[in-house]
């Protein structure tokens, strides 16, 4: 099936939704992004991300281990930029500190676990979420589960090649891209979006 025939859209899609890649959705080339399964220019996707976050009732950022832990140089700066972005968007931050399947012993009010991300989405009534700093395979698993079982809109700010299973996915996100995203959010907010 071609990507134009399958759109990665807000769920709930039902138990065991297909991996978007298996439905023909391909990752974008450098300089491009994915919006609901279609390849678009990165700048257009960033504007759309700002709109989605600003128009949400309860947008939440899910920072993952790659940014929560200061494990190498440059991470602290990224973390600061993510926090600034969340503040600009007036969005909450709920961490994904690691990937242990701690079922059923997580507190969904304060953390998210990739093995049952729906618990946190449901508990907090999150309508738009932003994944950032989550290793690829766990992000894909969690994004698919969210699409399958919730009506949350998913966004992935990925430092690698992007995520087909997110409704909007940027790729190659660096510090300057995070700062640019924050500026877009501030501008769109000023425009009353």
């Amino acid at each position, binding site marked *: 099936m071609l990507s134009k025939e399958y759109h990665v859209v807000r769920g709930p899609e039902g138990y065991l939704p297909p991996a978007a890649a298996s439905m023909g959705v391909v990752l974008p080339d450098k300089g491009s992004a994915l919006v609901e399964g279609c390849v678009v220019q990165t700048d257009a996707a960033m504007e759309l991300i700002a709109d989605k976050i600003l128009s949400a009732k309860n947008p939440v950022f899910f920072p993952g281990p790659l940014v929560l832990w200061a494990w190498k140089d440059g991470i602290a700066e990224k973390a600061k930029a993510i*926090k600034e972005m969340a503040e600009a968007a007036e969005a909450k931050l709920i961490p994904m500190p690691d990937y242990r399947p701690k079922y059923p012993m997580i507190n969904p009010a304060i953390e998210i676990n990739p093995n049952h991300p729906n618990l946190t989405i449901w508990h907090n009534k999150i309508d738009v979420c932003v994944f950032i700093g989550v290793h690829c395979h766990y992000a894909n698993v969690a994004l698919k589960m969210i699409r399958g079982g919730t009506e949350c809109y998913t966004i992935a700010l990925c430092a690698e090649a992007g995520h087909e299973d997110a409704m909007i996915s940027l790729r190659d996100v660096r510090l300057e891209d995070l700062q640019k995203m924050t500026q877009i959010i501030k501008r769109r907010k000023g425009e009353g979006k």
Partner: protein
Amino acid sequence: MIKSMFQISPGFEDIMPAEYLELIENGPFEKRVGVSDLGAFKELLEEHPLCAGCGLALSLRLILASLPNPEDTIIIGSTGCSALAFPQVALHNIHSLFGNQNAVASGVKRALNLRFPDKIKDVVVIAGDGATADIGLDMVLHSWFRQEKITTIMLDNEAYANTGGQESGMSPKGTVLNMAPKGKTFSKVSIPELAREAGCAYVASVNPAQPKKLEKAIVRGILAARELGPTYIQVFSPCPTNYKFKPNETISKVRLREKEGTYETKEFLSTEARELFARLEEEKK
């Protein structure tokens, strides 16, 4: 791993769950803690879904508190009751297919040696009696024959405990369980003797009723595996659910079996292991 890597990015401290903050502030990493310090530091396992009075849960807590180098320890587990607790353990751990744990551990150890040739990385298998003595016995024995530098710890609850209660090779002769109504017809397999004959440098059989002895065996098993070759530690971990005794009787059951002589505490050291421990003791002074 060094503790400086185990730091929360500035600005995210206020959103991290308390257990992670406690692990950083008061965890066992880069400290020389042991079972005597339990209660005074944040344990690697606090919550778990195992049954009340589970001997295995108690043993696992003691084992984790005994690890000499937790920040650089990788645990390889297998299917069984312990697999239900591992998701809660705040250490790198890998769940292997049932019985494959020693083959997976061999690969992990070799890969770590290539990737980090100058660092100590302890690879410790922790699996049940079914995974070690029955389904995975070939993988276990061949890892010993190959002299892989890994520590194998068996949590011996003498049954397949989370599948209704079938007999395992480690169940004593005559044992009647829910799924073994006629009673087991052959004797408990003597894995410590097999380990010794297969070339393990250090072999011990311990139990959670004697935490200091258990700790000593774990430390010795890991230190010997680093330098000499495979080591094996068997930890008696009785199962109140399948052996039908009260949860608060676990320790007394252990003591009774030891008194009866049906589950002895023992230790075997190869000549090389004896020399190694003597040298390490000397260096401590």
